[in-house]
């Protein structure tokens, strides 16, 4: 279990982590989501003891990271943003060194390094120099290093960066498998990744917690005002006044029609008001065929964008989104 209480990290005047608190129970895959510069990496560096917090406390597996660093660190495997590799070593030498560093007993080292190399698929390159490996392989060697000693908690900072789509799928499967026995915390600015893998999400922005919960909970709690999309056969000029007269309506927006002779509207209602029946009745009364009526629920992507787009970081998010869509 990991408990983060009122964590603050200040760099001069800049507040990188702003009173962050959360708890990760055992056996959960916990996702850290936020745009670039939101404080994800800083938080992870604080949790692993690489940085010291300005104030606040982090307890990993019952040990405070600041008070009993060696015991707490023993329970953590960490893959930083840039995998910490010694480029003058071979994969096998490096993992053997890392195993020694993590105090894996000598007898088990060979067996364990073989096992993590199998898991991450670097067994085939084990005698090659890290210098000569591609970014994807380096990332996987970094992940192998984090797995050594099979610590209770795995902290992975953007684990799939630099991997090709096939490898991303493999690593995701691996993380899901690991999540059965380990507590996994992973960060990402790619929503689909965390959504697919994580049991629980924490969205941070400017070092602050903006939302937390399971992906479903987030969708439910934030999509409080479900919008409706209504497609009606008939002229927009005739339909619009009818719809705008509906009680409880807060916003009406005309969308480009999907087919000839029909018009499409997006309706937003006040909280707790269900407009679906009213829309049906008014259309039926006026003899306007209602072609389609559906709830336009906010996707997690919309929530993420909404929560993190109140500043110049927004265009960056758009880019990420586009990149996401380009992926097969």
């Amino acid at each position, binding site marked *: 279990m990991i408990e983060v209480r009122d964590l603050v990290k200040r760099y001069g005047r800049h507040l990188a982590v702003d009173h962050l608190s959360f708890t990760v129970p055992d056996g959960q895959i916990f996702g850290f989501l936020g745009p670039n510069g939101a404080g994800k990496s800083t938080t992870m560096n604080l949790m692993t003891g690489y940085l010291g917090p300005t104030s606040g406390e982090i307890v990993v597996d019952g040990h405070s990271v600041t008070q009993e660093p060696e015991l707490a660190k023993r329970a953590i495997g960490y893959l930083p943003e840039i995998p910490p590799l010694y480029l003058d*070593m071979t994969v096998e030498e490096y993992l053997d060194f890392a195993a020694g*560093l993590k105090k894996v007993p000598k007898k088990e080292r060979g067996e364990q390094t073989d096992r993590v190399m199998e898991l991450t698929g670097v067994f085939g390159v084990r005698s090659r120099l890290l210098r000569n490996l591609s970014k994807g392989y380096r990332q996987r060697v970094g992940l192998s290093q984090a797995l050594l000693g099979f610590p209770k908690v795995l902290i992975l900072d953007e684990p799939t960066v630099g991997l090709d789509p096939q490898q991303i799928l493999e690593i995701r499967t691996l993380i899901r498998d690991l999540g059965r026995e380990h507590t996994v915390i992973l960060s990402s600015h790619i929503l689909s990744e965390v959504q697919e893998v994580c049991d629980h999400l924490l969205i941070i922005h400017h070092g602050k917690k903006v939302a937390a919960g399971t992906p479903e909970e987030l969708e439910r709690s934030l999509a409080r005002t479900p919008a409706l999309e209504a497609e009606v056969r008939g002229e927009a000029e005739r339909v619009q006044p009818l719809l705008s007269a509906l009680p409880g309506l807060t916003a009406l927006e005309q969308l480009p029609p999907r087919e000839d002779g029909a018009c499409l509207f997006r309706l937003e209602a006040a909280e707790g008001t269900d407009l679906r029946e009213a829309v049906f009745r008014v259309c039926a009364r006026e003899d306007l065929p209602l072609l389609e009526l559906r709830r336009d629920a906010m996707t997690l992507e919309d929530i993420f964008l909404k929560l993190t787009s109140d500043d110049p970081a927004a265009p960056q998010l758009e880019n990420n989104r586009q990149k996401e869509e380009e992926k097969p």
Partner: protein
Amino acid sequence: MSAIYKRELSSYFNSMIGYVFIAVLVFFTGIYFMAYNLYNGLPQFSYTLYSLMSILMFAIPLLTMKSMAEERRSRTDQLLLTAPVSLTGVVMGKFLAMATIFLIPVALCAFCPLIIAMNGEARLLSDYASLLAFFLMGCVFIAIGMFLSSLTESQIIAAVSTFAVLLVLFLWDDLVSFLPSALSSLLSAFSFTQVFYNFVQYSVFDLKGLVLYVSLAALFLFLTVQTLQKRRWA
């Protein structure tokens, strides 16, 4: 600590630095030994060590420049500092690895008094005492170099600043003599080279001086740990 020690040691031999460092010292030992002891027939090997001191000032920055700076530049310090190893363990592992590498040319030097003894009268006791002082002095240089390397990400800056500091230590007595007498007498008590000169020139076993060397090495190791610690909390 032992994992870090082993990795550091092998990394010096994975790259050229370890070989170059040893080769430079052995080469100049050979030259001075040939000139002083073999050609001119001086029985004291310590004179060779005396001349080697200036070579050491050039060679040590070569050894220490990457020790901390490179870790930080390549972000491998994240592995070391998040592993269940204390900062002191990290620093000591690195220091001992460098001291071990320095021990190799020193061990080779240990044969020279024996060569003299084979061909005539040698002053083994004073020569080996001088060699001990030479080794400890090198360890202080290493500790200083490592401390300066921990302050920067650039190996060049680490090497140049280490050389500058070693040069100041080398010129200490001359520089101090420019100061007002009260200050000068105080600071000359910390003369770094005088200890070594006592050994090599006057065959004096300067125990007080060795204590100074050991404490200076410990001080700079401590400062290195504090630098790393400070960066975490900055």
